[in-house]
């Protein structure tokens, strides 16, 4: 099936580059693009794409503002979001994930890998670039400088298996390589990754909350 993709990035040159790269891939169709938060929200509502490729850093609120705007307008009908950014700052990435993005890849990703990531989020999976996996590991395993609030062990900590999967993701393994390494099925790896994403979005841990709050105050 063909997935309809919408591009959001404030650099027109970058948008046309991604457009050209994705046009070469089968099963993907770029239905629109936008360079500002307002254009993006109305464009996404109008074109109703399957996947939105979202720049994290943009004037007037960045990717988080687009995510909020679209989710407010469409509710459960909102498309899935894949963050695509050059930003290295953990705060930005974690805030975008917590606002609802299903994954994060860096802009240096190749066209084929990007197409693959788009297909994966369209099918409901989570996409962890090694960098995102590193940030999430850091925020779940690091000691918090402030006392933690009452934590829900189900939501606020990762299981041993999830940690193993996340470590391998941070080391650059693909889902298939992780499945082989841990002697589990690819499906199980996907489930672990989705659980990690859900916990990253819903956890009450200070490290995650603080990053997200910092971003909203900007």
């Amino acid at each position, binding site marked *: 099936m063909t997935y309809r993709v919408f591009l959001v990035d404030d650099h027109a040159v970058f948008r046309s580059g991604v457009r050209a790269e994705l046009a070469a891939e089968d099963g993907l169709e770029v239905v629109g693009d936008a360079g500002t938060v307002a254009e993006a929200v109305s464009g996404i509502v109008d074109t109703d794409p399957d996947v939105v490729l979202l720049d994290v850093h943009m004037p007037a609120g960045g990717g988080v503002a687009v995510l909020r705007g679209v989710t407010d307008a469409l509710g459960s009908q909102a498309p899935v979001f894949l963050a695509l950014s050059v930003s290295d700052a953990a705060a930005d990435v974690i805030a975008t994930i917590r606002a609802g993005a299903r994954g994060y890849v860096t802009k*240096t990703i190749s066209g084929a890998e990007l197409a693959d990531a788009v297909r994966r989020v369209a099918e409901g999976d989570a996409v962890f670039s090694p960098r995102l996996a590193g940030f999430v590991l850091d925020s779940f*395993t690091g000691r918090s400088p402030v006392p933690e609030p009452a934590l829900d062990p189900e939501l606020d900590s990762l299981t041993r298996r999830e940690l193993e999967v996340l470590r391998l993701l*941070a*080391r*650059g*393994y693909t889902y298939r390589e992780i499945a082989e390494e841990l002697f589990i099925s690819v499906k199980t790896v996907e489930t672990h990754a989705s659980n990690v994403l859900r916990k990253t979005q819903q956890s009450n841990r200070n490290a995650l909350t603080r990053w997200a709050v910092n971003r909203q105050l900007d």
Partner: protein
Amino acid sequence: MPAPRRLQRRSGGKIVAGVCGGVADHLGVDVFRVRVVFVVLTVMAGAGVAAYALLWFFCPTGDDTAAPGPVERRQAYGLGFVGVAGLMVTFMIGSNAPAQDLIAVLFVLGGAALVWREVDMTGLGGRRTVLTWLRLAAGIVLVVGGLVVLVVAGDSIAGGVNPVLLAVPATLVGVVLLTVPLWIRLLRALDAERAARIRDAEREEIASHLHDSVLQTLALIQKRSGDPETVARLARRQERELRAWLFGDPAQRRESLAAAVAALSAEVEETYGTEIEAVTVGDVTGDELRDEQWARAASSLVAATREALVNAAKHSGAPKVDVYCEVTDEQVEVFVRDRGRGFDPEQVDPDRQGIAGSIRARMERAGGAAALRSAPGKGTNVTLTLPRTAPGHRRDPAQRDPARYDPTQTQEIS
């Protein structure tokens, strides 16, 4: 952490100069209590007056607008009166000076306060009404008058000193009292100018940095536009450098394991043109690296990581190498991984065995371990482990954490 908030005098809510209100806001207590404290201090030989004057000088005005209510105003005036009366009583008891001298001193202080307050409110460049001028004049008259009375009555205070001699310091005191607001303003202007100079210097530094780095790279890219590989490498190096400059913590840049791993990844990437994705979780901080033994072990780890990276970049043929460094309470682990052509560790390959051997020897000397896993066509995995024990309590090498992977194991990876 935000910088501690500076004490600011109340602006809209002031009775005299907003000092008590500012202190109350700063400490989060009721302003009435602060005023009582100042009054009590005033009764004690005038310490409250001195403290009030100093705070008035040194604290900037805030930007609040709520005016004090009539009750608060009346209370404050009442407290002020009590303070002045108390001060007079203690002075009269403490010294044998006659009452008119004390009243003269009060006149001088009151006049000075009037002048300061007026200049404080209107500013030198602010609008001046007739009332402002009247108040200023009244203040000056009070100060001068009070001083004249003191000088004329000087006989009784200083025990018969020539009034002319006394008039000289009295004039000085009067001039200083009346011009204090001007001096304060001058100091503040100097401060503001210094801050502006610092800002300018920063802007110049940014401009020169962008010129030396980004603009030069852009020029190079234009010149080499026919060679996509070089262009990509230049762009990547510039991106890394700029990002480190923008987001990097300058204190950490020198003394941190994560920074060292990032730096050497950039260096190897630049030298060999292989993309290196470096991810670090946790970090070893400067404090820990100051322990000499540990610092040596950590630099061995960094050197071994470098060898593994160079090895992968040179021989694997893979376009991309992943480095992952994780610091936990117990140990530091580094994984270097490529999806390149790989090799059989059992096979005698003097070059690569030599490098693998030297990585292992280096790690073992540092009290850690190295493991290598590879098979032809399956890429290469190098795992470096360094136990992280308290300084002076290094564990016996025999009890060292076993390497996570057996070196000879050639489990399939794709």
